[in-house]
């Protein structure tokens, strides 16, 4: 008895990508809302802060004036409130703001109402990749049959939209490697690869700097090639047996693949669908003198035999 386990190769967290897209949309909406609700220029005092920081980076906000105030930093998925002393510098430690996007920095105090914007950009260094590899199983010798798509994230799972070189390496069962280098665009990069001649498992790796992700792609034999059978008498019947069935690259077609034997005689026809066992298909059919026997598998035809009385 033969058991087969079918294990897929493709894997990714779609939710993270979808979340990033949702975050971007939410950020844009929040920006628009705050822009529309932005108060008149501050009556007194102002804010000094960087126009942009890297996600997770430390930063400081300096206000002018005197007295007490409240500082709000509002963005997508994060809101920070700090009581501050006007005229002093407030320091935000590393890791305080980690979701990339546009933030509104609002200072409200006695007679003070100031709003500034702060852009939090993804970190430059990739820390994670989501790697989609399709399909998990395909026939050998298929040009462009394998597709790999990568989404690049920083340590805080922000999509890094800056262009980055992504290496795709596909190592076949025989050891040869196909390599593609693609510059990511808007956080994504993809490449097509060819399946090789040999059945077995490919290792498909996407690498950006020191970060990599691997998937396994199963290469399976293609259609039978040169399907050939022989016939011999056997206890009043005709025994039909194929030669070991292989595809055009020489890979053994897997057991269980159906081979159809058809015998036509005197206007009648007998047909048997036989699964390959141990590399060959065999069957016994009635021996009719003058019968024409043919063999096929799927859409592939094999040879024909005319059976004469033995």
């Amino acid at each position, binding site marked *: 008895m033969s058991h087969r386990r079918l294990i897929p190769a493709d894997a990714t967290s779609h939710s993270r990508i979808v979340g990033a897209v949702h975050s971007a949309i939410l950020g844009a909406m929040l920006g628009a809302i705050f822009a529309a609700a932005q108060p008149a220029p501050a009556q007194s005092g102002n804010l000094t802060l960087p126009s942009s920081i890297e996600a997770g980076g430390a930063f400081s906000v300096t206000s002018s004036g005197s007295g007490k105030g409240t500082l709000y930093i509002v963005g997508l998925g994060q809101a920070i409130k700090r009581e501050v002393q006007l005229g002093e510098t407030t320091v935000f430690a590393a890791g305080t703001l980690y979701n990339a996007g546009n933030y509104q920095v609002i200072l409200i105090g006695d007679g003070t109402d100031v709003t500034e914007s702060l852009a939090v950009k993804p970190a430059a260094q990739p820390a994670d990749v989501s790697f989609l590899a399709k399909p998990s199983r395909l026939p050998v010798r298929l040009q462009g049959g394998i597709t790999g798509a990568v989404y690049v994230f920083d340590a805080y799972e922000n999509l890094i939209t800056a262009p980055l070189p992504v290496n795709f390496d596909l190592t076949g069962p025989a050891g040869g490697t196909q390599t593609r280098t693609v510059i990511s665009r808007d956080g994504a990069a993809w490449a097509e690869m060819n399946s090789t001649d040999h059945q077995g498992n490919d290792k498909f790796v996407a690498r950006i700097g020191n970060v990599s992700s691997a998937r396994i792609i199963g290469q399976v034999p293609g259609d039978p090639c040169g399907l050939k059978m022989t016939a011999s008498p056997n206890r009043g019947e005709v025994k039909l047996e194929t030669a070991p069935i292989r595809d055009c690259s020489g890979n053994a077609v*897997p*057991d*269980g693949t159906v081979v159809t034997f058809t015998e036509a005689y005197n*206007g009648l026809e007998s*047909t048997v669908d036989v699964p390959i066992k141990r590399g060959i298909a065999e069957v016994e059919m009635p021996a009719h003198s003058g019968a024409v026997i043919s063999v096929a598998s799927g859409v592939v035809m094999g040879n024909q035999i005319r059976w004469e009385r033995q």
Partner: protein
Amino acid sequence: MNIKGGMLAVLLGGATVVLVIIGTLSPVPAARAYAGGEGIMPSPTTPELAVRNLAGAIKARAWGRAYDSLGNKAEFSEEEFEHDITGYYPSLRTYATLDHFDVRPLRASDNDADIRLNIYWSTVVGVSSSSRDLHVVRNGDRWQADWPIVKKPMVPPQVIPVNYLRWDVIYPGPGDDWGAQSVEAPHVRIIDMHPVQRAEGVVILGELLNEDVVPAYVSVNATLLSKSQTPIASEGSFDKISHILLPKQVTPFLINFPDAQLSDVGSIRMTPFSTLVPASADPVIAIDNAHLNPAPNASLTGELINQSGQVVNVAHVLGTFYNNTGQVVWVADEYIDRALLPQTPAKFDIHIPEDLAHSISSERTVVSSYSSEGML
């Protein structure tokens, strides 16, 4: 008003009681038959009546009464008689009910007659018909039918080595690290598709190939689109397809669009569906002596031979018919309502529409099988 109403109620109640008493003491034959009463059939004074009485008892599943009415009951037991009708092993017939029957005299003399009994069974997959030719003999003033029993086929004792192939599938479980992963669906391909206009509507014929190395559960849906590309109707192949396809196996399919007109159709959207399922390569069923019989009564006949050692409870035969250019011109099917025993031929007879018979030059037959591995 109240007095009149009371009188009416009393009258109605009295009438009901009287009718119940009459019906109990002297029921009509049909009511007695449905109630399973004994001695309700008319005396079998003619050959046809004897056969009708027998069929009526079979319909009522009154096996004892049917068996007692037979002239040749000494040749077999009541249990054999019952199993000859309902099947020796679980099959479509086991759960079927006799829907209706008709009798046709073939020959008659003063002392004996031959009567053909056509029985129409209601099964879970539709009507299934069977026919038996009964010899009826006169016994005094009564006629008795001889039941042409088909005894349980005896398969010679033997050992059939089974080294069958089987595919198991591990699906991702909840909370599994695989998360959004899943096993890839088998790759299937429609290798032929051909819409035709029939009197009953549009029919889409075609063939589907499992081009993968794993077994597939398949079905095909089609959507008719108008010339402005708006959907007209969607239908599926239902059971006019072999749902389980082993690697490189081909199945025909037929999709019916009742009352649709091909002239209204601008294009057709075909949607093959496949999913990975556990499957076994056994049993292997051979199709033997397949023959295209020309019109009139065009049909594809042949025999199924179960080459495995297990009982196949239900077999579904699908015939694909091609014209001389190799194009599919029709797909038809038949369920075998008897279990297929190992190495025992079972006949099939697939009807072909008369108007298409002349254009058919070749055929291809496939068999789907279902085994419960249970026995009566």
